[in-house]
């Protein structure tokens, strides 16, 4: 198992290297620069800024400088947020995104799995149609539509919940963004769970279990649930990484200080170091999430083993 993990981590290094290099050069060929804006700068001021951030050096030199700093764990200064280093910003934004995304995924699993199982068990009944219809609605309506509507209803009209802001992660501030973020995931997971449960329920080992006289509850909970979870599990890896770093729309609508906003704002501002920092961080996160999901497979499917 350990050597498998070590091998996977070693394989991640060239992947990350390619991601970093490609992002570095793609960022630089994008039109517009970090200091282009409504107020065109006098040439001497632009020159001072370029020199201060070493942007006046040849590109390969800048690349080597960046890689050198990165190896020492230094993501560099943000061009836009000058009182923060990129490391500061990620350290500040990641816990927010983690809490938001983690809660949303937990909520999605908590509701999505039972919904899917229930729909599968009551296949082609009103319950199934109702649950899957709701799920389809959840997928079809994008969260940038749901979120402002929820804010308007629960925040402005009823006054029950704050319509935005982080407030140090206080529960009332979390409710609307977590629900808005989870709705689509609940829908995906429910549909996936239903399909996979139906497939598992039709397989031989379930028939055998029933033939042995186990009651339906035991069949479902002890035998069918775990294998039916496998597709959901493989979906979870990239979904968690995506939801944690990519909840940018929700972060924007509710004004939350998560990492997704740094990514988008960084790209729009041509804040090269901030974009690179989030790309590297995102890359590492995806690699780790995929590894964790692969390791979890062995828990859910006895046929999978990571032997040394």
């Amino acid at each position, binding site marked *: 198992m350990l050597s498998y993990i070590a091998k996977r981590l070693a394989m991640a290094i060239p992947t990350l290297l390619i991601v970093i290099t490609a992002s570095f050069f793609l960022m630089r060929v*994008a*039109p*517009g*620069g*970090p*200091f*282009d*804006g*409504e*107020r*065109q*700068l*006098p*040439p*001497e*001021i632009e020159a*001072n*800024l370029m*020199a*201060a951030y070493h942007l006046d050096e040849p590109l390969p030199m800048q690349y080597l400088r960046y890689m050198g700093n990165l190896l020492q764990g230094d993501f560099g200064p943000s061009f*836009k*947020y*000058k*009182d*923060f280093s990129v490391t*500061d*910003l990620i350290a*500040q*934004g990641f816990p927010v995104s983690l809490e938001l995304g983690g809660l949303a995924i937990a909520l999605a699993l908590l509701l999505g799995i039972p919904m899917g199982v229930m729909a599968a068990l009551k296949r082609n009944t009103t319950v199934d149609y109702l649950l899957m219809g709701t799920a389809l609605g959840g997928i079809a309506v994008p969260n940038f539509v749901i979120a*402002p509507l929820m*804010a*308007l209803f629960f*925040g*402005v009209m009823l*006054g*029950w*919940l*704050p*319509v*935005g*802001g*982080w407030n140090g992660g206080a*529960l*009332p501030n979390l409710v609307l963004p977590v629900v808005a973020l989870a709705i689509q995931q609940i829908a995906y997971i429910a549909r996936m769970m239903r399909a996979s449960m139906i497939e598992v329920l039709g397989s031989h080992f379930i028939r055998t279990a029933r033939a042995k006289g186990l009651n339906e509850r035991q069949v479902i909970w002890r035998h069918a649930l775990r294998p039916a979870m496998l597709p959901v599990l493989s979906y979870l890896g990239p979904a968690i990484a995506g939801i944690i770093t990519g909840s940018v729309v929700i972060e*924007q*609508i*509710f*004004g*939350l*200080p*998560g990492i997704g*906003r*740094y990514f988008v*704002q960084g790209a*729009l*501002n*041509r804040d090269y170091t901030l974009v690179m920092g989030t790309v590297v961080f995102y890359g590492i996160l995806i690699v780790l999430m995929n590894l964790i999901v692969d390791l979890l497979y062995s828990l859910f499917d006895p046929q999978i083993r990571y032997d040394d």
Partner: protein
Amino acid sequence: MNRLVSGCMAAALIWSLPLTVHAATLDIGIYGEPASLDAARVTGAVYDNDVLGDLFEGLVTLAPDGDYQPGVATDWSVSDDGLTWTFNLRDDARWSDGKPVTADDFVLAFQRALDPKVASIYANLLYPLKNAAAINRGEANIDTLGVQAEGDHRLHVELHQPTAYLPTLMAHIIASPVPSHLVREYGNDWTRLEHIATNGAFMPRRWVSHDHIETVKNPHFHDADSVTLEGVNYYLVEDLNTGLSRFRSGDLDVMRDFDASRYQWLKDNLGNAVHLHNQLSTYYYALNNREGHPTSDVRVREALNLALRRDIIVEKVLQGAANATSALVPDGVAHYDVQTMPGVDGDITARMNKARALLKDAGYGPEHPLDLRLRFNSRDDHRRIAVAAAAMWKPLGINIEMVNAEANVHYAEIARGDFDIARASWVADFDDASNFLGILASDNTKNYGGYHSDKFDSLLTQAAAQPDPDQRQQLLEQAERQALGDYAMAPIYADAARNLVNPDMTGWEDNAINRHLSRWISLNP
């Protein structure tokens, strides 16, 4: 079950408490985050001014109505030749760590702002100071800057030419002092929250990037007794709809912008919380005056200006949330009368006929249609205005190719001159007409259209050296008339400042530079 219900109700009550109880802390929604708490490293946007304006006080400061009034300086005088200004500093000014604010703090602040290594974006505002430009270009030693401390409480500022508006410039955040004792100890890290000291009415206590900046009252501020607020929180709200929802739910006392296209709805529903007033800002189309562009022909530029129906753009596209103008310098600028572009206010039929004749004269017509490229940065209102303008030019046989891009790309492209018509705007840094007219000077990088007129440049130079305010005003107005007569650009509207303001607040006065120091504001219980 009853317990569950009452538990839920109690929880709902607790959650809703912060929304209804009003502490004496002002919550402001700002649509961008300051780049730094160091005035030498910010971009000068509205939100930079909001936050840094509350944290620091310059030699001159602002009254609630936007008038300039003594700040750290008690009074000032200027030499007969207009080249040396002397500011006397108050002796009760203190940093938030209790140390006195001295003339040295201003000397170091100005030196840092011009130090090429600090790379201040706003350094050029201090170019009227002797040797400032040369220092910023790295051609002169920083000690040669025309600013000297005489003791702790007197500051001499030497200029390379008379600058009548120097006191207004001293109210800009770039002219804020720095705590020299901290800068010498921590360098650029002096703004870290564990080190920083401020001399304004408030001092920062917490900064969660992309969330909020929390400040509390500075007990050492010289006028602390009259500051009623316990603190000010600035919340970053980039999305205007979110800002509106947060304002309506009572989460924010002030939201520093709203969607102009919702002005009528807001007026109907929020009444006197909606503040709309003139500000010193002009929205215009830059016309490319360079050779090789059809717009280099003055007849084409005049035709474009004649056919633009600015009143319709303002009424229909902007819901009346701005003022149509054909001038570059908007109404409200001190010591200045609004100018108008010749011919653009007449009857529209006559204007269109003249425009057609001008285009025909310039060689354009059905056989040889005029194709122009209009660039704008991607935003709904810019798009709507561009579509309206293109429709107004269409009857003249002008085909408009619209190109939009995100802001950084847009400005990079138009700075290269790759356009015929390009959207731009100018918001005053300080209340003086030269700040607007300067963007048409031949050597100014903000002169996107590449307008060049020896007469215009010479009038600006004469005005800059003219110490008499009335004569200076005449020269500046003459310069603008020259540029408007050359149809150098196509001004469209003077923008309005848009704010949502809690009606229970006192001390907020709408003003043309749209700056509001929180020290004047009180929240009524």
